[in-house]
């Protein structure tokens, strides 16, 4: 049974034990230190979390980059920190099928997120060490919150309780702005309230068990439950949730460090942004929704968890890497293309995707690419598709480059599909949302496609696997 964390603190303790968390004990100024440290941490080979114990002017500590490396990602799943990405992919794929693993609802008294309550004189700065992430951001942002809402017409339907990550700008001591893009679940729910001119109840939770945070940024169907998925990804161990104080239908993680409760003001939009976004560029100011915070609960000495995002790779890329790849793999492998052996859809949320496939006949790989490009996610995001043979690890870019350099005859293997749907946040799409799809077939030609210069591949020498183990053991012993 994989290790499962009951709260963020247990996860951080494990990161610490594994050498994947660095403590900053000296006092720092919020700007630019916290954003800069988050940026720098993602460039380290082991990508550790960074824990700030003392931030000038604030009461509480902060952690950033908790998910920001493959080592931390493996530990999030309760696996050995050195687990290769491809193995993490297949493990996630296996646990995915345990859906639904429904959450357990616990009493208020059992929920650590209720240890402290603030009901009046709300001031977010009293609880959270807020800071500017990137220099041109229009204010201080929450970049790693799990936001809870429910369906006005079916308040008791757990499948329609939505847990999502949205960018949130602090507008005042008790007011925040939120970006609800039209294709987000929260926008569907908001429309039902705004038609009635009613405030929409909402809870913004911070500092959760790592797989709830992971699921909050995973695109799933509107009527699927993020909580039931998080339980599945905990290898069948349910997550614990509890009703919010201000609305029993708002079910929040029981061990959140901080829960902000309030409502979206109906039919109000105010100036929000700019914000440095995941494609590595700023998105400008827009008129967006506003939330009034009326009630806060928090653990004693709460830890503020936030992430750095900017030019990839940053922490956010790990939160939309394998959780984008696994659903794409399932939609291909389980629905008509069992010859697809792995999908790496983790470059800028699947704008760049590598598909490993064992082609049955000439043109087969290209058909798999077209299938990917006609899935809902692939249609919107997919732009650059690389096809490699099944024996190439699509998560190993050296191997992918080998395939590109030795398997591609550009005059026949590079294909452009003009005037196709694209991702508006991709600044190369023009007009925004229109792009050209690029398919590169780096698989070995199979009949009836001619392969006029076949080659014999060099196989690993006998004993390579045993030597890999031996060398790893010697290396590990040296490290101790």
């Amino acid at each position, binding site marked *: 049974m994989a290790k499962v964390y009951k709260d963020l603190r247990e996860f951080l303790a494990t990161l610490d034990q594994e050498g994947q968390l660095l403590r900053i004990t000296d006092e720092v*100024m*919020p*700007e630019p230190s916290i954003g800069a440290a988050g940026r720098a941490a993602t460039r380290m080979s082991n990508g550790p979390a960074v824990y700030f114990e003392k931030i*000038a*002017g*604030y*009461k509480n500590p902060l952690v950033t980059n908790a998910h920001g490396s493959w080592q931390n990602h493996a530990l999030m799943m309760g696996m050995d920190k050195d687990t290769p990405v491809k193995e993490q992919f297949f493990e996630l794929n296996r646990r995915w099928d345990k859906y639904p693993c429904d959450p357990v609802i616990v009493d208020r008294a059992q929920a650590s997120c209720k240890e402290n309550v603030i009901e009046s004189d709300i*001031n977010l*700065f*009293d609880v959270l060490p807020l800071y*500017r992430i990137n*220099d*041109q951001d*229009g*204010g*201080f942002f929450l970049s790693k919150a799990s936001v809870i809402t429910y369906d006005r017409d079916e308040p008791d339907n757990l499948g329609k309780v939505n847990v999502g990550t949205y960018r949130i*700008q*602090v*507008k*005042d*001591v008790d007011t925040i*702005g939120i*970006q*609800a*893009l*039209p294709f987000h679940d929260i*926008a569907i729910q*908001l*429309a039902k309230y*705004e*038609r*009635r*001119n009613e405030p929409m109840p909402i809870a913004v939770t911070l500092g959760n068990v790592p797989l709830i945070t992971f699921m909050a940024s995973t695109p799933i169907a509107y009527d699927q439950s993020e909580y039931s998925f998080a339980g599945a990804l905990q290898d069948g161990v349910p997550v614990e949730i509890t009703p919010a104080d201000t609305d029993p239908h708002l079910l929040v993680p029981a061990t959140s460090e901080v829960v902000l409760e309030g409502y979206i003001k109906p*039919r109000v*939009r*105010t*100036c*929000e942004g*700019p914000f440095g976004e995941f494609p590595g560029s*700023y998105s*400008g*100011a*827009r*008129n*967006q*929704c506003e939330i009034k915070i009326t009630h806060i609960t928090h653990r004693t000495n709460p830890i503020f968890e936030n992430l750095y995002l900017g030019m990839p790779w940053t922490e956010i890329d790990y939160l939309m890497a394998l959780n984008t790849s696994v659903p794409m793999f399932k939609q291909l492998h389980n629905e008509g293309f069992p010859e697809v052996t792995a999908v790496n859809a983790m470059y800028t949320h699947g704008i760049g995707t590598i598909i490993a496939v064992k082609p049955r006949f000439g043109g087969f790989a290209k058909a798999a690419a077209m299938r990917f490009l006609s899935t809902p996610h692939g249609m919107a995001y997919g732009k650059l598709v690389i096809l490699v043979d099944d024996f190439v690890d699509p998560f190993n870019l050296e191997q992918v480059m080998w395939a590109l350099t030795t398997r591609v005859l550009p005059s026949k293997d590079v294909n452009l599909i003009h005037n196709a749907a694209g991702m508006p946040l991709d600044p190369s799409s023009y007009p925004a949302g229109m792009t050209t799809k690029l398919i590169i077939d780096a698989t070995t030609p199979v009949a009836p496609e001619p392969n006029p210069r076949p080659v014999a591949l060099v196989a690993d020498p006998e004993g390579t696997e045993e030597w890999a183990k031996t060398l790893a053991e010697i290396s590990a012993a040296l490290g101790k």
Partner: protein
Amino acid sequence: MNCPRCDSPKTRVMTKSPVGDVWEVYVCDVCAYSWRSTEDPKVWPTFKLKPEQIPNLDVIPAIAPLDPDVSV
């Protein structure tokens, strides 16, 4: 003190540091830009806003029409 982004004079102290007298945070009531007293905000020309531009910014998401039986 004028707003670093829209140059409006309608700015105010949003809050002071909860511990010690280390910093204040200011906010513009016109464009919602906020900054800390320990920062020296330099808003790039591309992100400058004129107050009259704000009502014309894109609205995300669009506001759904009211149901026929509802009035504001």
